[in-house]
């Protein structure tokens, strides 16, 4: 295509259409070149730019104007230029800044992973393992809010919120009326409805899927199980809501459906449905259809092998990264380690090693 331009990220050159962001270009390369993202969500207009985890160094602006950019830039909101050279994980400055941002994000975070429903699929947990330090240098009281029930299905744990604004964009762009938003400012800002009003819009359940942490969780699933004990299965039903794709992921244990979510792609975002639209699902599919007979089962989900959920040998992997090539190119920096939640979580410390279990992990294995 004539409009394609060349951009080099961590010494890997790729051609992308004009108007692509650095982040999207890096995701095309894949693997660890792609900066971590906590607020950007490709499916939500206007998202990104806030968390600053995706900062990268632009060491050459473009072919025309090769000057480097003076500051690190948010890759999710910066467009590529022809001949641009970007350093992500090959830049000391970037690594240091990401460490800083990770520390900032964890500062007021309660570190209650053992009792958090998001544990195991939490972007902040992953970020902490990849870029955080052991221990904290912060020894003051953390921000404290009481958990709040916002409507029949959703619980808000404001203590865990990282202010990514994704849920606000989701409600703005998916539902007819937005009933929640950000009150106050600075480190006392919070997500709330004005007077704990119920969020009861047909599509509001999607805020649970976009929330990168455990701030918005599914009340119908709370404490019922750990995500890594349940087995994800793709399924669909003929949903009567015209805006709902009806294509979901069931989180099952045995024959029991514990949780229904949208399907996610390799970047943790809601994936496109078979009709090409973003696969948002309605509240009925998410909260009301908890029996196998409600669904046509398609088969086990393919899970990224880095994921905690994949600890028990899942088939295949969604990622496109060419890892071996990468290691040569990124000056010997090893790709991120497969993390083991059992080493860090205070609860669920089985004496079994997950990779010794045949097939998908099942809670029966830990009796």
């Amino acid at each position, binding site marked *: 295509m004539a409009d394609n331009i060349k951009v080099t990220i961590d010494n890997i050159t790729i051609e992308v259409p004009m108007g692509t962001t650095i982040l999207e270009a890096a995701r095309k390369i894949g693997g660890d070149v792609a900066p971590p993202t906590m607020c950007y969500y490709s499916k939500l207009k206007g998202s990104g730019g*806030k968390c600053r985890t995706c900062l990268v160094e632009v060491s050459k602006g473009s072919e025309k104007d090769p000057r480097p950019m003076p500051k690190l830039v948010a890759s999710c909101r910066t467009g590529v230029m022809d001949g641009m050279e970007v350093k992500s994980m090959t830049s000391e400055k970037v690594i240091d800044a990401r460490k*800083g941002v990770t520390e900032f994000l964890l*500062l*007021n975070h309660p570190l209650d992973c053992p009792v958090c429903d998001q544990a195991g699929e939490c972007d902040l947990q992953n970020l902490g393992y990849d870029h955080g330090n052991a221990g904290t240098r912060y020894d003051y009281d953390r921000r404290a809010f009481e958990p709040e029930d916002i409507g029949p299905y959703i619980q808000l744990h404001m203590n865990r919120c990282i*202010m990514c604004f994704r849920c606000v964009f989701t409600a703005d762009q998916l539902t007819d009326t937005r009933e929640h938003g950000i009150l106050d*400012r*600075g*480190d006392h*800002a919070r997500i709330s409805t004005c007077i704990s009003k119920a969020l009861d819009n047909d599509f509001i359940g999607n805020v649970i899927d976009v929330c990168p942490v455990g701030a918005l969780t599914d009340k119908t699933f709370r404490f019922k199980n750990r995500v890594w004990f349940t087995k994800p299965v793709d399924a669909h039903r003929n949903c009567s809501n015209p805006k709902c794709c009806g294509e979901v992921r069931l989180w099952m244990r045995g024959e029991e459906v514990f949780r229904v979510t949208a399907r996610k792609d390799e970047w943790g975002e809601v994936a496109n449905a078979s009709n090409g639209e973003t696969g948002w699902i309605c509240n009925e599919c998410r909260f009301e259809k908890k029996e196998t007979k409600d669904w046509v089962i398609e088969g086990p989900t393919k899970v990224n092998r880095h994921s905690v959920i994949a600890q028990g040998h899942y088939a295949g992997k969604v990622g496109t990264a060419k890892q071996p090539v990468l290691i040569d190119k990124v000056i010997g920096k090893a790709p991120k380690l497969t993390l083991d939640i059992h080493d860090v979580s205070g609860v669920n410390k089985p004496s079994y090693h997950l990779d010794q279990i045949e097939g998908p992990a099942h809670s029966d294995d830990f009796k």
Partner: protein
Amino acid sequence: MKLLLENAHIEGIRYYEAYRKHGGYRSVEKALKMTPDEIVEEVKKSGLRGRGGAGFPTGMKWSFLAKPEGVPRHLVCNADESEPGTFKDRYLMEFLPHLLIEGLIVSSFALGSNATYIYIRGEYAWIPDILEQAIAEAKNNGWLGKNIQNSGFDCEIYVQRGGGAYICGEETALIESLEGKRGNPRIKPPFPAVQGLWMRPTVVNNVETLAAVVPIINMGGEEYGKLGVGRSTGTKLMSACGNLNKPGVYEIPFDLTVEEFIFSDEYCGGIPNGKRLKACIPGGSSVPILPANLLLKDAKGNTRQMNYESLAEGGFATGSMLGSGGFIVLDEDQCVVRHTMSLARFYNHESCGQCSPCREGTGWMYKILKSIEYGKGRMEDIDLLWDIQRRIEGNTICPLGDAAAWPVAAAIRHFRDEFEWHVLHPEEAQTRNYGLAHYADPREVVAG
């Protein structure tokens, strides 16, 4: 030579009659006979730099304004003045409202803005009435409204009160707030010159910047440019406060020395009670604090002058910035730790909370400074503070993050011994101040 405050003490100058009698609105008469481009050219020639803090050349900013066919453009006057130590815009608006209105009319004509806004700080509760009265007077006399002075140019000026948030002084947060939204800074690009207010091309300028357009048009850009030193042209309003005999708003020439500004009777009249000078923040709370020995002379030994270049001499290692002109003086009885703590509290309170380094980092710095100030600090806290500010600076959406980081960095850089003394003598630090130490006023002046 005074260009802005020349007539400030004339009785009734706040009202149209007196203002017009003393040469008011002459620049509008002159400007309406010029083309908009000619006015922009004059402002370019004048070398005027933005008085809101960053010092960006105004003429250049104006020439960046996108002019797509059929899309309205806007001029917005930034009167949100909330930087601690800065109160010059208030003085202008309160005592010379017509000077601002006159500057706004000329600038609106130059930029093609038919609807111009003044966004004013919420706490300036009494000033919108003064401005609105001036606008009404100007309108009654044909300087505003439809077809101004038969020129074919229409212009309205609207006054909008802010809700009292410092962050709404940041130009894109201001625009969001004007649009009726939460005052969060926008992520740039796009810049306001292309997509600003209601996604239309917009110029945001400080009150003093826009008022300075009046003398520029009256005397010609070239004459204005001859005043001052180097790239600091014209005159500057300074708001001086702290330990001074005569705090207040002064219009200064750029070749004035810092020493003269603080100690001469024409300006601040020295430091009260025979105390000595310890430190100074020369340009509003965001700019680096300087100890007396680096304030009066720069590191090379040259006498410092009150202008953009001279105050910045030495970079952040040994220099500071002219900023918005909020000149805060600390005498020997002031505690730098306490002072830095109260600034950190301010930035913590005013952070909009959008981006993580600023939202979390400002609160963290405040808590550490508070513990040092109240005798609970540890040595490693000082290095930790340094580490935190370093990781905020440059990594945020808007410059508030930098503004929060710089004062902490400068305080540690220049006054580290005072921080260490607080840590080592936690009890004594509760009963007395550290005093002057080696960064004393080199002249050993004891002013009367």
